[in-house]
């Protein structure tokens, strides 16, 4: 998991469990050919064999069984993005990275506004839309996919479960503490899997997965610095949150058992700098990436706004506006952010953002409704009326036209 999500306070318990990861010994396989390879000469050697079906009486089979059930659940949760182009694109990238393991992995794009991707030991991978909103080119997305596939190829979940099973009472408490918490949209899984999910991976495993993500970028000719940049962007968001005092309580606890984002960013930079032919690795495929995701970005942004993590969202919008793609909708959402935050001066800020959005051309039709609301707040009743009328024109079939007409009537 690459998650930066709030996770139950019980994670603190895990602090006590650090450092128990056993080193894998056993056959290793080449990610390029799927054939046995010596781990010593192959930096990308997998511990899992392509197409592996563990015998039913193994712990691996039990773990996969639980994840299969969880997969059945989230598949029908209604949160899976079914746009064929998005799915084709993401699956294509996964296959590029996974090579001989391609057929073993199923990718689900999940509509959920957090920076998160997960990988089940059964090959079920989740990529959340909150992540797709933040990765800004193909190289960044590849870095994340490579990281998750790294967890899979090195069987980190299984390793984690074995550690959990071998650790005693602290976990009984942990299990109890998380029993009521559920695991968000993924749905309740069996206690153990929920546990594996919540405990996430160890620091060492995250470092190994980061290294895999990096090596995959290099292998496929992408600019490896993009992996570090993702963390740079996230750190900016977190800093903004900290400044606003909106920092999520559990974040520090979460980080206690994970490598710090700063450390991950710096390590990834160092790895990138060490690459000998780095000058040749410039591919980021920004255009391809944008062609797939920009048409859907409004939905991602709307979900993000609904979280009301204003400081983070403001920072994110700032970065996206700098990129200069479809800025009208970005200004619109920044206006929405200010309008909803409603701090001192926010009404004026919102008004300005909406104006910028209109200037940029082709903003979402809802902008006129929002402008009407802002004008109303500023006492500009004629302007408000005009804006609401423009809304009716832009969205004649909207679900709220009756109430808008009612409001216009009151303004007259």
């Amino acid at each position: 998991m690459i998650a930066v999500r709030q996770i139950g306070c019980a994670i603190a318990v895990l602090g006590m469990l650090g450092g128990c990861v056993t080193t894998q010994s056993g056959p290793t396989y080449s990610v390029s050919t799927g054939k046995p390879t010596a781990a010593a000469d192959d930096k990308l050697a997998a511990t899992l064999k392509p197409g592996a079906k563990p015998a039913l009486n193994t712990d691996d089979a039990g773990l996969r069984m639980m994840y299969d059930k969880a997969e059945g659940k989230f598949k029908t949760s209604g949160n899976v993005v079914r746009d064929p182009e998005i799915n084709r694109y993401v699956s294509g990238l996964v296959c590029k990275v996974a090579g001989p393991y391609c057929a073993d992995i199923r990718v689900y794009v999940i509509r959920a506004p957090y920076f998160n991707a997960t990988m089940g030991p059964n090959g079920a991978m989740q990529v959340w839309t909150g992540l797709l909103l933040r990765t800004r080119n193909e190289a960044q997305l590849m870095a994340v996919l490579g990281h998750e596939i790294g967890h899979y190829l090195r069987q980190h979940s299984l390793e984690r479960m074995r550690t959990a099973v071998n650790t005693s009472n602290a976990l009984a408490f942990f299990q109890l503490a998380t029993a009521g918490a559920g695991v968000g949209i993924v749905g309740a899984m069996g206690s153990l899997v929920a546990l594996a999910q919540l405990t996430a991976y160890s620091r060492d495993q995250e470092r190994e997965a980061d290294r895999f993500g990096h090596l995959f970028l290099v292998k496929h000719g992408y600019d490896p610095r993009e992996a570090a940049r993702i963390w740079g962007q996230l750190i900016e968001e977190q800093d903004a949150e900290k400044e606003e005092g909106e920092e999520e309580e559990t974040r520090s606890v979460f980080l206690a058992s994970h490598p710090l984002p700063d450390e991950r960013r710096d390590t990834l930079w160092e790895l990138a700098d060490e690459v000998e032919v780095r000058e040749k690795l410039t591919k980021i495929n920004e255009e391809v990436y944008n062609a797939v995701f920009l048409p859907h970005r409004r939905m991602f942004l709307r979900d993000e706004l609904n979280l009301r993590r204003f400081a983070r969202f403001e920072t994110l919008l700032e970065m996206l506006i700098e990129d200069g793609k479809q800025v009208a909708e970005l200004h619109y959402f920044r206006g929405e952010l200010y309008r909803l935050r409603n701090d001192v001066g926010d009404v004026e800020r919102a008004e300005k953002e909406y104006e910028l959005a209109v200037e940029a051309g082709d903003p979402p039709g809802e902008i006129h409704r929002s402008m009407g609301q802002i004008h109303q707040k500023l006492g500009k009743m004629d302007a408000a009326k005009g804006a609401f009328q423009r809304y009716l024109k832009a969205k004649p079939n909207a679900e709220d036209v009756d109430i808008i007409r009612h409001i216009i009537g009151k303004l007259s």
Partner: protein
Amino acid sequence: MSLQRGMLWLVVVGLLVSGCQTISLGTREHLWTDSNNRRVLLMPADIELSVLNAGGVTEPNAAWTEKAKKLAFESLQEKMGETSATLVSYDEKSANPDPDSDEVQLLKLHQAVGGSIMLHKFFAPLALPTKKESFDWTLGPAVATLREKHAADYGLFVFIRDSYASGGRAAAIFIGAVLGVGIQGGTQVGFASLVDLKSGEIVWFNRLARGQGDMRNEKGATETIALLLNNFPK
């Protein structure tokens, strides 16, 4: 907006401490009016067997689960045979995968209904006064989809969680102390419900909760299923 999801699990655990192993509710004594073509559709059986490790972690066991599912099906089939009914399996592969389809939504609705029955019928502090004397939950008329597709009269839902201690009870005692439940090695909890595929009505519901039982072998599976189908209408 609703009661905590986690509660349900605790209610199930709470049931373990009450005296009887099964309690059943039903609305009719006889299932069949016609002697031909008696078909009962077994909905995807949610059965899971696991090891309760010393640390209190339940570790799912795929081999036991596979075997238990097979044994449960055979045993259920035999049970249905007693009223000359045939048990047919719900084929998950041929089911409509659309999350909005009636097929998918009915499974989810049954989870919500089953949970409500457990919460409000088997846990006295949360009893609903209007349902004191009645048992009238239903899945509604959408069940027609299932009746037509599978040509079945009733749908049978089965849920079983079975765990066995693997040496060492330190953690179990630990959990017990916190939860107020003594876990004696292994536990078996589950429920089964029978839905009339004409009306959607839940015509029979039974819950099972005990500190023994073993679905890993034929004899134990038969015994568990017999208990799970306690007071099953003829």
